[in-house]
């Protein structure tokens, strides 16, 4: 009984004390104040110049995304054109055909892929534009970063407004959920916002960067995109003056058209803006561009063979135009780099040569093949053709002929027997010639489809494959977005 008592008391005190101790430790607020694990809280971000740099890097990195460069972009920006068709094997991803034949409905997945992809770019730009101004850092660098963000934002809105018409215009990050559900902004206002961003950007951006920064948006990038934006609105004066400005910046054409699209000519003297892509097996997802993979030669492992040239495109080239073979990779031929282009049953007979990456270029199974290939967004040849078109529309045939000739001369590569100089000063004839030149020069570069619509020739060119005026100028707004907006977003007519 005595032992009972002693131990009883001792045990009670020990155990109860332990319990109480545990209680006090666990009840402390610090026990519950758990910081996020393996994630940087946003309150510690937007503090330093390094933060600003990283946030601008993210904008460029994200431009490689699937939505920006692969299926969604192909569906929205290429399939509708007469120069490209689905490719791959007949029944593979046959939904792509609904873009080619204009039977697409609003639930088709590439619509929302493209929509989301562009708005993801825009969010990354808005993050920079909202937050970087408050960072204390090198003032010049800050101003440049903001201009770079405005350039990419303008580029993304340009792609959106071209594809969908009126789109929600978000120029800041939504502060909270109440700002989530906004209606579509009339496209005139969207165009205006794009032009303002570009005007701001071209005033600030440098024309050249040191080697370590090559690939960032330049003054020329902003001016050229601005010209294109103006061209889509038929503001010919503006197109002319902007392209004239670009033509003073020192760009020139790469003499060999085929070589222009190879890896060693990335960021060349002709390059006005390119999406920077690379192969980095040491960094997960840094080699995520599938631009070349989805368009590559199917008979090669890892290539899918979508977005292939059509017979209409083959026919569009003038006799002897070397650009035909540099644009279209024919099965049965061997490339300059020595790759034999083969096929198996059901494969396409032609591929996009501009997205071709020589087969001996390093790759592995866990990264898309050809992830090195930069996407040529804006080329000097495009600028020259815009200049020619604007000059012709304004009645300045001399300048139109001269700019057009620069492009044709390069294509000719000294062979006087082909691609004769266009000499007609007739506005109509010249216009047709310029349209034709755009078609063959920029074929398979995600330009043709909207170019034809812009030119008001949709019915004439695409009518035979189902294009209808009053409807197919724009694609449908993704149904999932309309669903989520609870009717705030409206559908385009005819869908």
């Amino acid at each position, binding site marked *: 009984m005595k032992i009972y008592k002693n131990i009883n008391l001792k*045990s009670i005190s020990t155990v109860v004390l*332990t*319990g109480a101790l*545990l*209680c006090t430790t666990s009840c402390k607020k610090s*026990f*519950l*104040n758990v910081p*996020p*694990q*393996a*994630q*940087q*809280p946003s309150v510690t*971000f937007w503090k330093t110049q390094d933060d600003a740099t*990283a946030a601008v890097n*993210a904008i460029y*990195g*994200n431009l*490689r995304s699937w939505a920006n460069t692969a299926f969604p972009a192909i569906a929205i920006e290429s399939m509708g054109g007469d120069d490209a068709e689905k490719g791959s*094997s*007949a*029944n*593979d991803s*046959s939904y792509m055909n609904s873009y080619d034949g204009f*039977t*697409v*409905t609003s*639930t088709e*997945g590439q619509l*929302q*892929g493209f*929509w*989301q992809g562009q708005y993801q*770019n825009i969010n990354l730009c808005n*993050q*920079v534009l909202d937050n970087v101004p408050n960072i204390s850092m090198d003032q010049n660098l800050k101003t440049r970063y903001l201009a770079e963000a405005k350039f990419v934002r303008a580029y993304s809105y340009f792609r959106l407004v071209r594809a969908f018409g009126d789109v*929600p215009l978000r120029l800041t990050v939504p502060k909270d*959920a109440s700002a*989530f559900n906004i209606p579509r902004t009339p496209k005139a206002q969207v165009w205006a916002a794009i032009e303002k961003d570009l005007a701001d950007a071209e005033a600030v951006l440098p024309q050249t960067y040191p*080697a370590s*920064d*090559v690939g960032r948006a330049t003054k020329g990038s902003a001016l050229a995109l601005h010209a294109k934006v103006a061209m889509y609105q038929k503001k010919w004066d503006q197109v002319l003056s902007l392209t004239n400005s670009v033509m003073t910046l020192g760009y020139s054409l790469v003499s060999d058209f085929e070589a222009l699209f190879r890896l060693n000519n990335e960021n060349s003297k002709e390059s006005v803006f390119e999406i920077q892509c690379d192969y*980095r097996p*040491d960094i997960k*997802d840094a080699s995520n561009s599938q631009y070349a993979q989805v368009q590559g030669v*199917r*008979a090669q*492992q890892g290539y899918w063979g979508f977005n292939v040239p059509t017979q209409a495109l083959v026919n569009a080239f003038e006799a002897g135009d070397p650009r035909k073979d540099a644009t279209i990779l024919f099965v049965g031929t061997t490339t300059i780099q020595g790759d034999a282009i083969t096929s*198996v*049953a059901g494969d396409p007979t032609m591929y996009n040569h501009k997205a071709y990456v020589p087969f001996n270029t390093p790759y*592995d*199974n*866990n990264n898309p093949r050809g992830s090195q290939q930069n996407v040529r967004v804006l080329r000097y040849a495009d600028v020259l053709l815009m200049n020619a078109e604007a000059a012709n529309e304004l009645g300045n045939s001399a300048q139109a002929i001269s700019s057009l000739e620069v492009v044709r001369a390069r294509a000719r590569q000294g062979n006087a027997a082909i691609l004769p100089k266009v000499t007609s000063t007739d506005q109509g004839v010249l216009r047709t010639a310029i349209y034709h030149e755009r078609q063959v020069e920029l074929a398979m570069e995600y330009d043709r489809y909207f170019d034809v619509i812009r030119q008001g020739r949709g019915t004439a060119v695409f009518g035979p494959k189902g294009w209808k005026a009053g409807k197919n100028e724009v694609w449908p707004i993704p*149904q*999932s977005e*309309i*669903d989520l907006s609870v009717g705030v*977003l409206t*559908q385009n007519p005819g869908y």
Partner: protein
Amino acid sequence: MKRIFTKFSVLTFLCLLFINAAFAQNITVKGVVTDGQDKSTIPSVSVMVKGTTTGAQTDVAGRYTISAPANATLVFTYVGYITKEVPVNNQSTINVVLNSSSQDLEQVVVVGYGTQRKIDVTGAVATVKGEDISKQASTNPVSALQGKVAGVSISNNGAPGSAPQITIRGTGTVYGNTSVLYVVDGVWFDDINFLNPADIESISILKDASSLSIYGIRAANGVVLVTTSKGKKGDPVINYNGSIGFQSVTNAVKMANGTEFATMINELSTSAGNAPLFKDPSIYGKGTDWYGQVLRNAMVTNHQLSINGGTEKSSYNFSLGYLNQDGIVKNNNYKRYTARLSNDFQLYKFLKIGYNVAGTASKSNDINNSIFHQIYAAGPIVPVYYADGTYGDPNDFGLGGGNNFNPQVTLDFYNNVTKNYRLTGNVYAELNILKNLTFKTSAGGDFGQLEARGYSPVYKATQGQQNDISLLNIDRTEDRNWIIENTLTYKNTFGDHNLTVLAGQTAQRYKQNYINGTARNVPFSSEGDLYLALGDAGTRTVTNTGSLRTATSYFGRVNYSFKDRYLLNASFRADAASQFYGGGELWGYFPSIGAGWVISNEPFMKDQTVFSNLKLRGSWGKIGNAGVPSNPTTLTVSQPGGYVIVFNGVAYTGKSIDTAVPTFLNWERGVGTDIGLEAGFLNNRLNIEADYYIKKTQNAIFGIPVRQDIGLKDSKLIGNQADFENKGFELLATWKDKTDGGLTYSISGNFGYNKNKVTSVVTGLNPIYGGGDGLTNGALATRTVLGGSIGEFYGYKVAGVFQNTAEIAKSAQPNAIPGDFKYVDQNGDGVIDGKDRVSLGSPNPKFSYGLNTNFAYKNFDLTIDIQGVAGVDVYNANLGLRYGNENFTKDFYDHRWHGEGTSNTYPSTNIGSGANSAPNSFFVESGAYIRVRNLQLGYTLPKALMGKWKMQRIRVFANAQNPINLFGYKGFSPEIGKPTVGTYSPLSRGIDANVYPLYATYNLGVNVTF
């Protein structure tokens, strides 16, 4: 105060009395303990001298010998039987008859933080005995519960080593952690896959809110309490259970054969205006049966050995388990080794300590989960191997896209091993401060390490399946969790009043660390090469993430009963969870109350003979759910590899903010009411238990899709978005009897009805959409809308199939081609668009039922368990999930549209494209099934032999699991568990995209007791 003092004196007096008793003259008492019903002897019955620690145990023949004071009282206890006290009164032989407690309210059930007599329970608590689980030779303790308990629905995934999806009384929550809480000997788990089913003594399933409420923080999805076996006093008892069996696919889906496939691919090509791919489909004949090629009859072996025993002062239980299960996919294998040791020491009369530690090691040779899609999709015209022994290549047949694989290659070159090491356990001390007051403190821990190693070798098999640079991938996930509990229990009787008061405190911490490394060009001549260090320097990557959650809680409960007639239970819990720190209400408070009336104990019931037991009970309680990811209100910075930019060959980190978080997040709360009736008839041969319940979830946390033009990475925002309700009815009826001819049997049927309804959503009348992903071609296939059920299927209603262009021209779908689905124009506006979609069915089962029977005659025993669900739908995503030339089922071939007048229900082979693949009623099928879940025949060898062999018991058995399955669903199995790819969400429940095929298991086994 005075009263307590008096009480205390009485207590001390009693205490002295017992100690004095110990000095009385001891005599030796012998006897035999038998079962009151079948008169068989009961081994391992604990025989104790009341008030002392002196005890003995009956042997195999039910005999015991104990030395006890002549005036002592002996206490006979055995699990499942009513404890009996017999005064010695100088007798040297005392034969005792014990009555099974299942026929009586004296039965004890495990509840949260304690036990209660069944008679005192006012909530809905179901218990399952360990033997009912181990008997099934099931490899997973949870799947063994299927069909056993009303209101509990279990969907097995089927893959060896995988956890089933369990839902108690309907979907209670939709976001974050949707799994029930498993409490194993006081330690909390999200899944109990690592447990050896043979180690389980009992399982309690807390169903109603009042029983759950004491687990506030994690109660929302229901709680399953698992008690593992403890040692019993007596000589060592050695048990061995072993079984060997094989698993075989049942209800296989028949795919189209070579000729049928080629015919359909030609139709697909011509429908798109292309030339047919195959000149003469008939040359392909039967072709390759990919299911036959990849699946197999697979062996499963199970060995379990346990030793338990003890003395007056201590007891022990030690067990070892070994499971070796081949998957029904070739190369798939799962091995699990388990060891468990528990010791309890009665150090002093007032102090007991003990521990319980279990180790599990498992190793899985994994399969590439895409194999299920591949064998469904693979073209039967492609041979496994060509005559020269090389792999058949789909590209040689022009198939490619969507079908660019030879499943055999996928099997052969997939090399992934997952090892799971887990050490769990707890230590406790129990101190009787006063006779009626017990303090218990316990600390539990869970240390897990999951190792996954994948190696992709260099190979060239087909055009689409080759690898030029090897890749080694190593994953490590470490869990370091602990829980501390302190409880004080006061239990006393004051005349007719019974009172138990519990007060407690607990703290928990959950830490996880994940690290992944990859390297390329790692050679592989042996496993010794598989280290990242051997890879090329410029190719190594590393990823490291983790999570940390903490919680602290206080709780209390009062159980009061008067004359065993009137019952009152009340509890309260307060929880603080780190998830809600700074951005929500830190504390959540969860009260509950329950009352019961044992009518059969009323004096006025004394003379009636109809009811042997009648009890009415009702309860109400609040429960909570903190199962949201850590720091949900803290906005964080993203820096994925996709934001890395390379300028001039140098890679730069990209960071930004691409998510949105709510500024405030509240506890998700549940409120539940339960009314129950328990009745026993005919001397308790028939027992009926009926419950009606309403369970409401308030402030349900959802990650709802938000508009993508906000630019977020995953376009979701979490928040307290909705309220919903599960209302239902459960019935359990058990008949137990023994015939004069010696047949003992029990038949138990259970039935549950649950109706799931959304009562409010933040978006008002507008639905929350879900179920998109790749499974449904990106379209949102489910919606959660006011008045509907959670995640109901949503899409177009199919009116028929277009037969010709004339019909199309007149229709609302001008772009359709013959053979396409004709949808119902719900709003009659002449256009088929999003506004024409309607509810197509619900993935939440309305009815679930089970029939469990046991028969014993002489030495034979037979168990038949039947189980099923009804009132549920399944979305057969396999049908529409097509990228190109995937195969079709034979059923589709037989019924497809292939020309005017051929079908008005099945579309053409163009089913995977355009408007046809949009979610629609064709893809939604009934998910009802009925299944013979378990069939077992056992034979116990005659006792005479046992004596000769010096053994206690040998039983041999044959068992079949899932041998018979009846359903109309056209996929493999309407039982859609957790998906093999991707994560589970109640918003995309019931979408079948390549579930693990259903299989039956046939075992032969033996139970031996030495």
